[in-house]
């Protein structure tokens, strides 16, 4: 079976791309609802954009490799193995945390409490995405406890890039724009291992 679906991500069909986009769409929809409930405000969402990008381009996408970003990263186990990252600009992450906690934060750094809130937001957002993937594919997926890191975009993106690096020179980014009065947009990066790619494709009837 693995041979049958042994595609590199460059060779992925447009169909598979569409499927990932659709999963992104549903996931982002779920995430928007969850976010809206959590934050107690209306949250709008744009149609997600799925893009396959060279490593070199990835840094610039988020506003340059030195742009400060918050990355929430977790490992996925169960029927498939891999990792998922939700990444957004530091200001967007801060705006979300402030909304959740209902108070302005002090200073430039996140407090322990704010980091913890950020992890929870990441949990909700990635959870919504993984749920839609699990529902569509009928696969069992367990996410790990998330970890958060705030640093330069280049440094944070190198983590999924390294995981993709073993199979390709490109990586798959799903851009999700949430908005209310502030820009809360972020990117999902899903990194299934090679075997899991085959399983996802198979479960979807490819």
């Amino acid at each position, binding site marked *: 079976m693995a041979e049958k679906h042994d595609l*590199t991500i460059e060779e992925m069909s447009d169909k598979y791309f569409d499927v990932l986009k659709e999963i992104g769409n549903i996931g982002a929809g779920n995430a928007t609802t969850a976010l809206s409930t959590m934050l107690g405000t209306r949250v709008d969402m744009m149609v997600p954009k799925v893009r396959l990008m060279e*490593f*070199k381009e*990835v*840094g610039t996408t988020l506003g*340059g*490799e*030195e742009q*400060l970003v918050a*990355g929430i*990263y977790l*490992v996925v186990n169960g029927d498939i193995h891999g990792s998922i990252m939700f990444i957004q600009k530091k200001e967007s992450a801060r705006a979300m945390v402030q909304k959740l906690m209902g108070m302005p934060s002090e200073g430039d*750094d996140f407090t322990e409490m704010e980091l913890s809130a950020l992890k929870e937001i990441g949990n909700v957002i990635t959870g919504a995405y993984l749920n839609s993937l699990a529902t569509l594919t009928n696969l069992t997926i367990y996410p*790990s*406890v998330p*970890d958060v*890191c*705030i*640093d*330069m*975009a*280049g*440094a*944070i*993106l*190198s*983590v999924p*890039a*390294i995981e993709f*690096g*073993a*199979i*390709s*020179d490109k990586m798959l980014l799903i851009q999700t724009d949430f908005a209310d009065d502030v820009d809360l947009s972020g990117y999902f990066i899903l990194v299934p291992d090679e075997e899991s790619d085959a399983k996802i494709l198979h479960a979807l009837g490819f």
Partner: protein
Amino acid sequence: MPETIKVGIADLNVCRPPDMITTIGLGSCVGIAIRDKIAKVGGLVHVMLPNSQEVKSNGNPAKFADTGIPELVKRLEKMGAVKSRMVAKIAGGATMFSFQSKSELMGIGDRNVAATKQALKQLGIPILAEDTGANYGRTVTFDPETGDYEIKAVGKPLKVI
């Protein structure tokens, strides 16, 4: 006008003074700067993974420590550098997320640093200084004139090794 040449992820380049060479946002990756001060030439490679033998997609030598470093040495030799005069400085190899290191015996950052040292040792190139490990990203700039390797990190003072 002196230029600062940018090296991307899984990329390498060489330059002569007064030009400098930089790579932005090293996370678990390692930035290896090599210089021959007599030939007045220096270079930088930004490697992502330790070993090209372990993965299928290994067409780009600059992606791996075991192939990227010899490739950089070759490029420097073409510009007149001599291997026996070359010296290196290395930075990067951080563990950005805490559970990264738990999943494997050794985190990818540490493995990249170990593979870098191994590759340099095999080539007989001494490491003059290093700023590796920890849990933060680094932007590095190498000056082939002085051999200064400047390291910037978020919320930390500028460091020169």
